[in-house]
């Protein structure tokens, strides 16, 4: 009987140890959203607060309006540069614009600093801007959808410190309407009628998952050759193809966001948080370099 008593004690011990304690989790985080584009003026910064999962999402209601924001070039740890100051837009709560027309330098590292005195919080995040690149050539500029010939784009290589370049390809339909939808996307969107174009909103710019530079052929002159798949085109007609070389922050955000609810080796119902590079808060402060072309896609 002593053995069975021991067994019973062990069962209770295991069952007790199996009770998990709830992990500590802050629900009042500040969310930041800002992007820098190589060679372009500094962009807006958006600030808001987390919203409860059962709450109605309303950016304006959750906007953070009393922040002091600046972006610094911290590429050189010794030489300090003048920070880019930001100011809140009067009629757009939570949106801040730069008080400078300075342009973003490729391969520079910038730090975003957000002070919220009322909350006693400071958020920081750094991004290193990918190196600039350009389209050398592309052909043809007009294709028949799913015809024999696909669009080939030749681009110079972008540079990113410490790793190969990572691209996201975006396709923007320049005449986006329901009759112009390609067959696959027409079935995906399932428009109620040919006039209800609100349903197209999510598909106006179609984006690829992150793709490594090594996935593409390197031509003898060192440029990359990119073949545009038919899957990229949501609309017939004129399309803008945008090649975006993205920084580490955007890359981590995109790749972790796309597996939040499936599409990975995680079990269904396991939802990992996105990879976060904002100290003291959440969100994304990313950068990218972009090059683009325009093509025409004809109906077959």
């Amino acid at each position, binding site marked *: 009987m002593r*053995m069975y008593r021991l067994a019973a004690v062990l*069962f209770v011990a*295991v*069952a007790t*140890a*199996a009770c998990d304690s*709830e*992990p500590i989790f802050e629900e009042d*985080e500040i969310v930041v*959203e800002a*992007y820098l584009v190589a060679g372009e003026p500094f962009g807006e910064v*958006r600030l808001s607060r*987390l*919203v*409860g*999962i*059962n709450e*109605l*999402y309303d950016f304006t209601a959750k906007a953070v309006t009393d922040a002091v924001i600046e972006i610094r070039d911290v590429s050189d740890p010794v030489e300090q540069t003048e920070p880019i100051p930001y100011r809140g837009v009067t009629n757009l709560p939570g949106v801040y614009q730069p008080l400078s027309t300075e342009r973003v330098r490729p391969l520079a590292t910038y730090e975003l600093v957000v002070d919220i005195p009322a909350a006693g919080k400071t958020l920081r995040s750094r991004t290193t801007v990918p190196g600039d690149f350009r389209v050398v050539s592309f052909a043809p500029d007009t294709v028949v959808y*799913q015809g024999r010939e*696909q669009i080939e784009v030749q681009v110079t290589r972008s540079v990113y410190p410490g790793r190969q370049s*990572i691209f996201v390809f*975006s396709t923007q339909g320049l005449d986006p309407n329901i009759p112009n939808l*390609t*067959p*696959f*996307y027409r*079935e*995906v969107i399932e428009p109620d009628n040919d006039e209800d174009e609100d349903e197209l909103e*999510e598909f106006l710019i*179609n*984006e690829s998952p*992150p793709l*490594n530079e090594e*996935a593409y052929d390197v031509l003898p002159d060192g440029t990359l050759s990119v*073949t545009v*798949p038919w*899957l990229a085109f949501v609309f017939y007609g004129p399309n803008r193809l945008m090649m975006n070389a*993205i920084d580490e922050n955007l*890359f981590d955000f*995109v*790749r*972790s*966001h*796309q*597996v939040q*609810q499936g599409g*990975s*080796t995680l*079990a*269904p*119902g*396991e*939802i*990992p*948080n996105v*990879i*976060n*590079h904002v100290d003291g808060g*959440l969100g994304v402060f990313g950068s990218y370099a972009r090059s683009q072309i325009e093509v025409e896609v004809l109906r077959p």
Partner: protein
Amino acid sequence: MLRFLTTSLFVAAVTWAPIAVAQTSASVSGFVRDARSGETLLLANVLIKDTSTGTATNNAGYYTLTNLDAGSYTLRFSYIGYDESEKTVELSAGERLRLDVDLVPEDFVVGEVVVTARAEVDEEIRSLGVAQLKTDLVRSIPAILEADVFRSLQLLPGVKAASDYSSGLYVRGGSPDQTLILLDRTTVYNPSHFFGFFSTFNPDAVKDVRLYKGGYPAEYGGRLGAVVDIYNKDGNRNETRGRLSVGLLASRGIVEGPYKYGSWMFAVRRSTLEPLLSVLRGQEVEGIPDSFYFVDTNGKINVDVSDNDRVSVSFYAGQDALLLPFLEDASVDLEYGNRTVSLNWTHIFSDRLFSNFTATSSRYFSRPIIEIAGTPISRSNNVYDQSVKGDFEFIAGSNHELSGGFWSGLFTFRLRDEFDGEESLFKRIQSPYSALYIQDTFRPDPHWKITAGLRANYFSEGSYVRFEPRFSVDRILGSDARVQVGYGRYYQFLTLITNELFTGSDIWLTTDTGVPPSYGDQFVAGLKSSLTKDVRLDFEVYYRSMRDLFELDPRLADASGLEYADLFRFGKGFAYGAETYLEKPTGRLNGFASYTVGVTRRRFPDFPNAGEERFYPPKYDRTHDLNVVANYRLSKRWTLTGVFAAATGQAYTRPRSQYRILDNPLGSEVKNVLVSPFNADRLPPYHRLDIGASLFGRFFGFADYELQLQVLNVYNRRNIWFYFFEFEDDNTVKRTEVPMLPVPIPNISFTLNF
């Protein structure tokens, strides 16, 4: 490698030879077989009557009793589901008696629940962490569409299922890749049909299923957690017999019989969904595939070369195929399957030295092609494993049984991805591997059994050499109980990339430079007792660690140009628990109940959050897990069966907060972000009752029939598989329940035995 083995065996032989030579003791050895079919019986009990001295047959059905003084002995042979047999022998000094014994199957056992041998204190089957599954049980348990070996294993303590849709084995906190699956001594890499719904093993073709849940002996290796060792039938050695089953999803048949030199067996199973699919397509039901089937075949030929030599060739071939158009301008075309073949030679050198040699070849392939909007995305994934292995059992001295062996092979993995007609990834890994083991089982007296072993592993990819000590002690307490403790270290050189939703494109990857093998220690203790002659109660506790776990990084976006080690995330984990198993294997009312309380945790640096180092429960973790299986023989013609399962809800991630990326610079889609503590919540408790009835009779005088009527999820429990969170246009978040078996599901099958 072979030199090491030869040297080891030589040293062992020299060490023990003086004892062996000096003695004039007698011995008895032989095969234990089914009298009706001639099939050898694995782990059958052999006991000298009125003593505690005994042994069990090995994986070939062979036993040896040595160091017997001259005299008269009555040997009792027993195996569950068979009448006991007693043989009285007279042994003279030094005599080596060969005694093959045939056991007669009990007539009434058709359809009964018989899981393990009956309550006797010397049964090998009651070794630490071992469970044996009889195919009668597999066929009798209510099953979703098709009787399944793995789904029956999931009812045993310490074994969990990921969901109602999965036949994957999660043994004592281990993921399915931590369980080595052997069919006729050959590794099977993806043993699933129907995208994981059930396993590839045809219950009609299977003779013996043994599960080593943990602390498994040195004979096995290569996996952190467990071993499923499956043996197909040899084929009836006395008469030609057959069985034909027609079910809702599939039909299967087996024929077996003798021939001049031995026996043969051939079994086939194929899905029979085509008529149903055709009707559904005719009614223009969405999502119906153009083509879908699975098929598997098993075969074996045995050659009884002599009393001491048996040769067999066995094969398995299985395949799933699906062609599914979806939406406009999109389709999935998938084929995956396994092929195995093994050549086995059993040679009995003497009454003291038994050997078995096997040459194996295993192949797994998967070829998914998805075409979306004129853009083909394809993968060709192949695993090849060719190996040779040898196992020796040597009775050394009066109390020692020495075993040793080798396993050497070549593992090849080839993966080729294409996107839009261009190769986007090519990876080929070819790695020779070898393992040697030696083990001594020491029985100082009939009440003690001490086993110590060592396994050495070499894996070429990364040049890893690892040693695995194994140790166990078994102490018989009186006539109805035994206490056991065990320890083992285990290494694993492979990892499986899979998804619970879909196992049709599983990929195995290996260690390499920068990717060391996973390893873990297992500590196990058990108390086995017989409450009455017909009721046994087993209790086991376990603790196991898992270190250097390597898994494909779930956030990996594109593997192009990355270093091999960059494909993985590395972590660790642990599991512990207590299991109890109450069984009544015979009688009009028979069955078993298993209950497990257990904890499984894993941790990966920076997952789920940067800088976070939290152990979390994987989805398959369940604190409490109860299964009850009962059979009641209503009459000679009717048998009722019931299976009840209850468990703690699985771990899941309940989002607490949300935010949105409104100015997505890469596309027009707003990025809706969930913020959640990872797997910190539990789904509602799981419970389900399945019932069945079987009617037995004669079919027009030429065959026995069995009609099975079953209903799964009888009381319509809506168990939750997972929740999906959708962001609505009105800026709310809607939670959608994705259920397991959502309604009561009937099943019917009809079987003829002829």
